[in-house]
């Protein structure tokens, strides 16, 4: 068996052999999930296999000393340690390989619209080149414009890069927050050093509660137990000793693994692997190979960029052809093309989207969701299935007394997080006896120096059940340590798995009572065997059949709740047989351990967090399926699932139905059962289709007794249903599942570094409810991004139409390319970000998650409504301003048509207007700039209206409240102030093409702004009035 296993081990890591081999033994199965994903990294693996030939567990202490040049007693010398550190590097997992910063930066430079703008810039320079070749006096305008476009690309690229770097830094700083310490022996002295400084050959000491700082070979151990769950997924504690027990390094008892925790006892060990060379390090680095693919929002943005770029290029090309066929020179046609591209590309939008996402990320961080990848913010919102861990995420991750049974009655205890008193009936004398047993028969102790800490938060030395009992009794009776002092312990037998009980003998605190008190707790059936009487209302009564039956019923009931039940009994030892000086000997057990008096039962559970049931209900109404995936026993899992509402009160599993109808399970129609509890063993047997069937047919699913690798299978199953899957995880072996998930959520407190590395999000408080607030934020940002994009796209038409009319009708150019850039990157930036602060229009948690292929960020309705409705209205308003200026200054619309060639001819210095006045070319140029400025101001004014209408998509603006989002008003103020500065401040700088404007021209477009607002209110009114109508389908975006 041993040999086989070791073979299996190598199979797992190099992933070459077949899955069948892995099915043979228990240890192998753990790596099954990993395998598929690691299979393709072959070259990497050869190297790994070599490294994995770990034989340190077979060596004895002497050989180890020789191998690592160390001394077991004195440790390494500091100089040697420093040498090795320099050779091997620090003992830390290197973060997954990042794309180099330059690549990241360049990606930003060419991604999105950048390509289009680069093309525009290059066209500008080419145009200038041609002009210059023809005529040495060519104006430099095109060169400037090219530079401006290039600057825009570089600037937005730097900005996006900076934003991304900033969010990466958050997580980096987070993981560095708690430097771990290790107790190491060097130069014959014990020293506390940061765990990162450990090197191979160091002798380290670990004790209960520590995380093992590196892979260590145990040299000495005292009752040392470790929790290997982060590595193997097995939550049962495993003992560690210095004996070589197994060929497979993973199975042998004398190796402790990096990042696993020591639960109790102490051990001394020699470091045999550090950092990435540890077993965990290798698994983690392999796990990071699971592809990092595009987030839903990235796909949406790409989709949007495609739409806009498509529109830009096609309109550009169409008009290029029109211009050429209208006998415009090719050179001029190229310049038109540039104008069309610049007008069509929302230069500032991607920056605004980034800012909006990072604002949401910040908001989520405040609510304990730390987002590593900005785009994951939205992914959470589109989540349709959450695969959640049980322990720690849904539950409080601490055992707590949930029920008591004494006097033939079940009492319920308070299991909330911050209990200060228990309110069940404590008047019975039986409770007095029971409480004494609970207090005394307990080895757990509070760590000293925590007087001011609330009881529930005090740190306890001891195992989980004992801790629970200690805290329970401390809450009820106060100062337990004092009680214990008064009842001195004279003998003790600790719990062990053969006895299945724990016993201690105490003096009593009653000075008149010289008897000893023997107290015992343990597995209820074992305890009952040892009893002949039972205490009812403080009276000892013989244990007859009916009381035994009452016990059985209570035991079954509590066990059925998934709780761990403990029995308690006691015996006052007769004074004459056991005098003061009686030498109790625990080896020979020279005292009675039968015919005791049974007192009661206590049941323990890791109770759900109090916020979770609400959160689960919210998820359900939000159309999110919550699936529990746990390594726990199915009964416990089901009980917790029921108490948090993952399995709702009235739904049944196939087994429940079978039980109710009293028919075999096979006869039940699986579709009748809403809920399902699937065991890990069953899951192993299932084919892909069967799993799919389970996932489709049942809405409430619990996977119990699963290994972390099966999580990956479950995630893949969910993804086959086209779901966006969020997965929580903490162990190293969860990392493939976290990577595979659309959004991996690592636990901030319990999570391992590998899990945090693999995840997209870190839950700082490990609380499931935080995920739900995250979902809410994610959905909100999706809605708000729609608004931002709709807002930004609208004015593109108002920027584009001038060029089209200019080309076709030959009017003087209404707005210049530079001016357009001042709208896109000036007045419109802050308002578009302000929309990210908009509150939800209705309860966004009451609708289904968006379908990732059908509910697009930018859909046809949004594009059409922005471009062809509001955009056209805006263009008309802006043209009204344009014609007003030209008319009032002397050029009536009729005069402007087809005036272009004369207007732009620098050799005509006496161009006649409608009044017969004659204009020089420069006078015309300034008039043109007044036109630009007024067109710009008109767009700005109408964008204010656009901003206000975009606050809502369905509700009236009055339902939403005009003043709830203050940032909108900052946005509006910024629009006006920037426009004022451009017009009056920079009006004299000719390169900017702005001029001061007569006051009344600022107001020309206001009627159109009002029309825009009215039209949109009308649209929303009809949408609300006639849901599902033709109007709703075509006008709701």
């Amino acid at each position: 068996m041993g040999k086989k296993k070791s073979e299996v081990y190598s199979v797992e890591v190099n992933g070459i052999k077949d899955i069948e081999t892995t099915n043979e033994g228990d240890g192998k199965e753990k790596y099954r999930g990993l395998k598929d994903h690691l299979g393709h990294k072959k070259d990497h693996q050869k190297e790994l296999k070599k490294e994995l030939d770990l034989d340190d567990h077979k060596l004895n202490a002497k050989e180890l000393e020789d191998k690592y040049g160390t001394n077991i007693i004195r440790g390494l010398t500091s100089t040697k340690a420093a040498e090795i550190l320099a050779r091997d590097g620090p003992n830390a997992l290197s973060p997954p390989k990042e794309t180099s910063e330059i690549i990241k930066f360049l990606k930003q430079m060419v991604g999105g619209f950048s390509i289009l703008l680069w093309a525009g810039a290059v066209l500008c320079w080419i145009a200038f080149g041609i002009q210059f070749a023809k005529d040495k006096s060519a104006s430099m305008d095109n060169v400037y414009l090219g530079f401006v476009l290039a600057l825009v690309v570089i600037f937005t690229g730097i900005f996006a890069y900076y934003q991304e770097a900033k969010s990466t830094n958050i997580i980096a700083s987070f993981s560095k927050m708690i430097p771990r310490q290790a107790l190491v022996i060097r130069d014959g002295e014990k020293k506390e050093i940061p765990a990162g400084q450990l090197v191979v050959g160091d002798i380290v000491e670990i004790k209960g509660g520590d995380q093992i700082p590196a892979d260590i070979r145990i040299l000495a151990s005292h009752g040392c137990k470790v929790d290997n769950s982060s590595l193997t997924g097995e939550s049962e504690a495993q003992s560690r000793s210095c004996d070589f027990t197994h060929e497979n390094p993973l199975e042998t008892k004398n190796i402790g693994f990096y990042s696993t925790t020591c639960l109790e006892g102490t051990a001394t060990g020699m470091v045999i692997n550090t950092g990435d060379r540890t077993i965990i390090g290798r698994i983690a680095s392999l796990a990071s190979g699971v592809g990092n693919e595009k987030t839903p929002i990235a796909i949406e943005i790409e989709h949007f960029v495609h739409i806009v770029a498509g529109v830009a290029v096609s309109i550009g090309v169409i008009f290029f052809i029109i211009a050429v066929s209208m006998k415009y020179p090719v050179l001029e046609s190229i310049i038109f093309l540039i104008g069309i591209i610049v007008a069509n590309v929302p230069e500032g939008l991607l920056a605004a989207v980034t800012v909006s996402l990072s604002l949401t990320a910040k908001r989520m961080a405040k609510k304990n969701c730390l987002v590593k990848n900005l785009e994951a913010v939205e992914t959470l919102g589109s989540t349709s299935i959450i695969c959640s861990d049980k322990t720690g995420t849904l539950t409080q991750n601490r055992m707590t007394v949930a029920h008591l049974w004494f006097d033939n009655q079940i009492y319920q205890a308070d299991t909330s997080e911050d209990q200060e008193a228990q309110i069940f009936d404590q008047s019975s004398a039986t409770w007095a006896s029971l409480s004494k047993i609970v207090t005394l028969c307990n080895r757990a102790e509070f760590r000293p120096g925590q007087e001011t800490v609330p009881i529930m938060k005090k740190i306890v030395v001891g195992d989980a059940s004992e801790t629970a009992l200690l805290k329970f009794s401390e809450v009820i009776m106060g100062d337990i340590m004092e009680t214990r002092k008064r009842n001195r312990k004279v003998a003790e037998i600790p719990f062990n798995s053969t006895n299945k009980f724990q016993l201690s003998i105490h003096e009593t605190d009653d000075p008149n009572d010289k008897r000893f008190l023997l107290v015992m707790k343990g597995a209820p059936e074992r305890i009952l065997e040892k009893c002949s009487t039972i205490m009812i209302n403080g009276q000892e009564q013989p244990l007859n059949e009916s009381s035994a039956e009452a016990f059985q019923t209570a035991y079954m009931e509590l066990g059925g709740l998934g709780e761990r039940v403990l029995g308690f009994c006691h015996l006052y030892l007769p004074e004459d047989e056991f005098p003061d000086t009686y030498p109790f000997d625990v080896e020979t057990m020279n005292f009675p351990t039968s015919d005791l008096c049974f007192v009661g039962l206590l049941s323990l559970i890791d109770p759900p967090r109090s916020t979770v049931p609400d959160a689960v209900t919210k998820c359900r109404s939000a159309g999110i399926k919550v699936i529990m995936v746990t390594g726990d026993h199915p009964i416990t899992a089901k009980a917790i699932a029921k108490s948090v509402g993952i399995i709702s009160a009235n739904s049944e599993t196939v087994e429940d139905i079978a039980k109710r109808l009293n028919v075999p399970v096979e006869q039940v129609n699986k579709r009748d059962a809403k809920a399902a509890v699937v065991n890990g063993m069953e899951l192993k047997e299932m084919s892909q289709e069967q799993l799919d069937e389970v996932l489709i047919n049942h809405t409430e699913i619990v996977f119990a007794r699963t290994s972390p690798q099966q999580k990956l299978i479950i995630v893949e199953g969910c993804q086959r249903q086209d779901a966006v899957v969020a997965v929580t995880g903490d162990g190293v072996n969860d990392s493939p599942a976290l990577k595979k998930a659309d959004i991996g959520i690592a636990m901030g407190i319990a999570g391992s570094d590998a899990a945090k590395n693999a995840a997209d999000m870190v839950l700082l408080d490990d609380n499931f409810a935080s995920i739900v607030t995250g979902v809410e934020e994610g959905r909100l940002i999706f809605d708000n991004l729609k608004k931002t994009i709709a807002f930004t796209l609208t004015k593109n038409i108002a920027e584009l139409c001038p060029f089209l009319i200019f080309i076709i009708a030959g009017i003087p150019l209404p707005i210049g390319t530079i001016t357009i850039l001042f709208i896109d990157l000036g007045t419109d930036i802050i308002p578009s970000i302000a929309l990210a602060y908009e509150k939800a229009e209705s309860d966004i948690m009451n609708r289904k998650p968006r379908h990732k292929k059908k509910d697009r960020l930018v859909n046809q309705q949004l594009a059409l409504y922005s471009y062809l409705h509001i955009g056209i209205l805006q263009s008309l308003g802006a043209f009204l301003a344009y014609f007003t200026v030209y008319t009032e200054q002397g050029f009536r619309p009729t005069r402007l048509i087809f005036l272009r060639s004369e207007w732009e001819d620098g050799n005509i210095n006496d161009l006649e207007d409608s009044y017969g006045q004659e204009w020089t070319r420069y006078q015309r140029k300034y008039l043109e700039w007044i036109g630009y400025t007024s067109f710009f101001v008109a767009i700005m004014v109408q964008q204010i209206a656009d901003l206000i209408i975009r606050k809502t998509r369905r509700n009236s603006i009055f339902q939403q409240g005009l003043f709830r989002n203050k940032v909108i008003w900052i946005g509006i103020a910024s629009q006006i102030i920037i426009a004022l500065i451009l017009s009056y401040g920079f009006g004299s700088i000719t390169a900017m093409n702005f001029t001061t404007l007569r006051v009344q021209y600022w107001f020309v477009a206001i009627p159109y702004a009002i029309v825009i607002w009215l039209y949109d209110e009308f649209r929303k009114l009809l949408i609300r009035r006639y849901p599902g109508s033709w109007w709703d389908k075509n006008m709701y975006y």
Partner: protein
Amino acid sequence: MAALQEKKTCSQRMEEFRHYCWNPDTGQLLGRTLSKWVWISLYYVAFYVVMSGLFALAIYTLMCTIDPYTPDYQDQLKSPGVTLRPDVYGERGLEIFYNVSDKTSWKDLTQTLHTFLSGYTPAAQEENINCSFEQYFIQKEFRAPNHTKFSCKFTADMLQNCSGLTDPNFGFEEGKPCFIIKMNRIVNFLPSNNNTAPRVDCTFLEENHKDFTPLEVDYYPSNGTFSLHYFPYYGKKAQPHYSNPLVAAKFLNIPKNKEVIIVCKIIAENVSFDNPHDPYEGKVEFKLKIQK
């Protein structure tokens, strides 16, 4: 973060596109059935008709506020521009280069002048009245026929030697060319607040002319003034036959085979010639090179 990537082959994409263009199952053409297309087109037509109506109404209202005789604002026309005939533009502004002995090199220049002056023949000026008073011709009422105002005659013969009547070559042949200076029309513009007529003053641009001998010029009409009775201009509608007064300058001592820069300014109280942003305001600069 994973697997939302939709990897499709090119043929799949083409198939999808074809399906989009025409979906035989639902009868959808480009995503809509025919009747839906009709509906949506009807809506758009209606929407745009209403919008165009609204825009037309807005423009109509705008036109109603406009005075047909005078523009509302003359923000860019504080001071008139000045133009030159003949006007040949080179790389940097006006450049008049010709060779005295090569007739073809100046034939076009004189032709320009002839064409330009064709608007100033007695026949062309027939509708205008003769004016001899040397002061502003202020007309409050529309006394002229067809509810217009009177304009004063300016005929080519007032330019005497530069009229092209006595010397059809405008002096180009002997290297003493005539140039015609025209001041741009601006409605209601008065060159000065007193009764001083605006005068043309042509000089060499000093900086480019080291051995400075002042330019000798003969102005026509004499003194190079624009008579005040041509001002103010009341606009095209009030004065449909108005023609700008002209001044001709005959340069007598242009050095041969040398490029000179000449600037002709209008000297008048309300005419500025030092706007750095507009070189054509109140003055005209040009390069002149006469070869022999």
